[in-house]
């Protein structure tokens, strides 16, 4: 997706500042290759970080995490992937939806350590390497399926999951099976239209 044009006159952008901060903070936590191959030492004490292996958007990550870290916070604050959004942080809004082993789940209600060895797909991993958007991303643009955009990454991941589950066969189906994703701007009719547009292409993707 195109970068938002938030750069100020001196070329300093909020996005770049955030990304720089996150990678600087995350760097000491990344385990070296040698450590990653060593057997994982079971955690025996409270607050002892646990090395967690995640495959995020087909890239391997080794993150040293407090066990309390949600998958959402691991993605945003430790892997530096801020596309996944934190809405309510209590499983009520769907903004944090990602795919784990191909199934849509709420990353805020899952402890990152429980996802060791799993395949995670976030909105950053949907476009192909040549920059071509996933059909569902393109459909959200074509159908004007968002206003503020905060819920959109979760909507798109949930929509892909919904299609792959076979629950997007009718408008009513889509409304029922997408009910876990709240859109405060109420773009619902256009979200339904976007899912209908991308449904068949998504099945093949």
């Amino acid at each position, binding site marked *: 997706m195109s970068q938002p044009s938030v750069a100020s006159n001196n070329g300093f952008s909020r996005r770049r500042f955030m990304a720089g901060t996150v990678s600087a903070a995350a760097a000491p936590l990344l385990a070296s290759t040698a450590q990653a191959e060593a057997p994982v030492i079971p955690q025996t004490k409270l607050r002892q970080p646990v090395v967690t292996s995640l495959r995020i958007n087909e890239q391997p990550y080794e993150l040293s995490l407090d*066990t309390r870290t949600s998958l959402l916070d691991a993605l945003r604050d430790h892997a530096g992937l801020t596309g996944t959004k934190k809405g309510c942080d209590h499983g009520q809004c769907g903004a944090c939806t990602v795919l784990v082993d191909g199934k849509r*789940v709420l990353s805020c209600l899952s402890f990152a350590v429980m996802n060791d060895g799993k395949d995670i797909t976030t909105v950053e991993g949907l476009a192909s390497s040549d920059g071509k958007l996933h059909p569902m991303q393109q459909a959200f643009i074509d159908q004007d399926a968002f206003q503020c955009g905060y819920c959109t990454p979760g909507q798109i991941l949930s929509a892909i999951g919904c299609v792959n589950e076979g629950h997007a066969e009718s408008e009513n189906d889509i409304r029922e099976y997408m009910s876990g994703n709240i859109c405060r701007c109420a773009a619902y009719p256009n979200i339904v239209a976007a899912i209908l547009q991308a449904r068949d292409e998504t099945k093949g993707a």
Partner: protein
Amino acid sequence: MRPFVYEQPADISAAVAIASRFTTSDDQPTRANAQFIAGGTNLADYMKLGVAEPNRLLDLNRLKESGLRQIRVTDDGIRFGALVRMGEAADHREVKERYPVIADSLRLAASGQIRNMASLAGNILQRTRCEYFRETSWQCNKRVPGSGCAAMEGFNRQHAVLGDSDACIATYHGDFAQALIALDAVVHAEGSRGARKIPFAKLHRQPGDTPHIETDLAADEIITAIEVPAMPWARRSLYLKIRDRESYAFALASAAVALDLDGETVREARIALGGVATVPWRAGAAEQSLQGKKLDETSAEAAADAAFAQAQPRQHNAFKIELGKRTLVRALLETRDMKV
């Protein structure tokens, strides 16, 4: 959130062994230092809120016993492994055909994402959504025994009118459990004192004066399976759920109904009510009132009256009695009219 040690036991006996090492026989599962986690949709939320405070989490998702992840349909009925996810069971072809009330109750619960995460056993053990239970600054006898109940004189629109006590009026919000109690399901559990079967109706405890005791389970006991007996006539069954919004909301009132009919005459009726009681609620009096009767609007209304005869309204939830009755009447008539 309180820090916790995270463990992944390899099999059921290892999980039980760790749990019994870190709990005592007096511990309630919901208050023990070591607690089990599967989907985490309920427990992770309550840990964030400070309502649940385990310092050791035993992740059951890597248990090696494959039966925990299987749905098996046999001549004796159907057996759900405890770790089967809600979404998988809701979409299971034979569950939908043979026990529509089960498939409905799962499909109408939570959201697509949560159904992909939540295990069946975890779902039946989900804890109340009472606002005063969730927010730790309020008094709550379930969260802090003896501290009082802020819901009693508070905003209690969501609260229970059946099975309540002077200590607690928190609603049991689950849907699947209503189908299970109606169909006489049995829960299999394993703990340090061995394996046992618990009739579904004995799993949850009404609050009485000990609302912090929520189930019959010990802190080191794991639900391994849920069995529903064969019941050919359960093809005529459904779950009707009424809520503030059309989807992704807890029930204000719901009804699980299964009918064995001879023409329009009731041979046997199974009825459970959700959203209105403190525990999964079998409406025995309503079932009896229908037995041998022609099922029509009059007999359905009489059954609904019987179901709510003991109901105890509070300031903001009296509407649930009328809503609950109408929900049951509609569920009964719609079940009668099902083409099976």
